[in-house]
């Protein structure tokens, strides 16, 4: 189970990092979403991975699962959700006002050439 969770978090982080470093705002935002998924899973795992243990007082229990990480994750989810929404709005406004969604200051991508409708090409 540890290997699976660790590999999953690692993969999400790697994907997120790669996307964040792309020059366009949309991919960048998707990248931050991946990163926040990764960190949410990571926070869950920080209370250690356990099976079938009660989080709160239970007379018959010998040991407990850590009840705190879920509260932290909930806070983190709410915050990253709000942040992502704001970033999307900003990126949209920026795209509409400048006509480009590049975030690295490079030249806007050329407009795709108007494609002819299928079958009517000469």
């Amino acid at each position, binding site marked *: 189970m540890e290997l699976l969770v660790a590999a999953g978090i690692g993969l999400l982080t790697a994907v997120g990092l790669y996307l964040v470093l792309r020059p366009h705002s949309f991919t960048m935002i998707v990248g931050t979403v991946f990163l926040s998924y990764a960190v949410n899973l990571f926070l869950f795992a*920080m209370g250690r991975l356990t099976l079938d243990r009660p989080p709160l007082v239970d007379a018959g229990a010998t040991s407990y699962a850590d009840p705190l990480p879920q509260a932290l994750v909930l806070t983190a989810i709410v915050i990253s959700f709000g942040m992502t929404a704001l970033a999307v709005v900003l990126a949209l406004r920026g795209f509409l006002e400048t006509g480009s969604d590049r*975030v690295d200051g490079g030249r806007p991508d050329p407009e795709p050439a108007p494609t002819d409708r299928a079958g009517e090409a000469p």
Partner: protein
Amino acid sequence: MTPLPFTGLIVMPIVLPALTAAVLVLAFRYRLDLQRIVSVGAAALLLAVAIALYASARDGDVQPYALGNWPAPFGITLVLDRLSATMVLLTALVGLAVTLYAITGWDRRGRHFHPLLQFQLMGLSGAFLTGDVFNLFVFFEVMLIASYALMLHGGGARRLKAGLTYVAINLIGSTLFLFAVGVIYAVTGTLNMADLAAKVATVAPADEALLRTGALLLLLVFALKAALVPLHWWLPGAYAAAPGPVAAMFMLMTKVGAYAILRVYTLVFGVDAGAVANVASPWVVPAALLTLALGAAGVLASRSLTALACFSVVWSMGSLLTAFGLFDFGGIAAGLYYLLHSTLAGAALFLLVDLVAGVRDGAADRIVPTPALPQGALFAGLFFVAGIAVAGLPPLSGFVGKLLLLDATGSAPGAAVIWTVVLATSLAVILGFARAGSTLFWKTAPGPAVPARPGRAAMLPTVVCIAVLGATALLAAFAGPVTAELDATARQLLDTAAYRRAVAPVQSAAMPSGGTP
């Protein structure tokens, strides 16, 4: 002992701006005149609260406040000590100045300026008062979200572009913060700072590497906020795009990073931290020296007043963290004085740049000669004083700050390098300011003088700007009492045992986590 009027006063710097912001949005949404009255009143009230808190903290006791009466470390603890009281006082001062400055026009250029500023004040005060690492994260986010909207206040394509970069870098910073918090919690099982301070010294040897990773990740996050090289490059773009009064308020945003470094790496990862003791020491001073060099180079290369102000902020953060990076009594005391000075001087400079750009019409803030300005002598005089304050020439507070810094670093390892860098970059900054000032105010381009615009010649912004500059002069005039106060603050900060005793986290019998079944 000066007792608090009631113990709940500690939460007021957080609750008061939050309630004010809510009232402003809900009740006075379309009434800008009422918004201004309420906002100024709330800012003045916050200042009064901050003064009361400071008076109470002066006796040297660390005063914890358990939110919801949950004992530490199970609940969130707010902690009032001299350092947090000083920072809250500084926040309230700058907050009032910015509010007064903004009511003469900036708040009309977009919506919700005042509620957002109040939320910003709430986040800043919370970050300074909290005694819990995860709660620190939450307050960071509160002030960041407010700062995003404030930075975009007034709109425009350039602001949007800079804003997206600023949001992106802080989103990644927040993610790193959570990773760091996760690692530290996984190893120690707590996030309360006082409890952490007790537990980091006794981690199992197998977990030391993890804890060190967490501590350094956290340093990375704080350094990003404090604009420490090489994590500084977001600052010039973001601050330059922000409206003048907002940039003045942002002076405290970088200081939050410096404060967090100071708090966490003396209290939690300080000298008593066992295997991870002084984990930040090897990194902060070298990075701060690089910051000094890069900031000064930026000041010399600036082509606009705004860029000049931004790079002087980067440079002053370098000076500040050189002092804090020593993590000893002298360094912290000198750094605290420099922190007060650089916040006020930087805020005054940003307000002044906004004023000057306002009267210069076409040239705005570019460093090019223009025809003679209305009130040119006044602005030239103010710029001269602001330049003296920021660059650290006598007789203003920058000079005292620099003197304290040089004195504190005199016996540190590598003192020769530190002195060389500090003095050489100071010279470069003086040159940069002299060049900008002479181009702007001495050289005049031929042409008819710029007519004074009647509607814009409001007195209040100039008065606010002069008042903030006057505060740096006061800081220099009363350098003796102020440094005595800050010495006591530094001494209290280094007495981590007293902090831990005051917060007194309940020691849980056994950690509830237990590995895999």
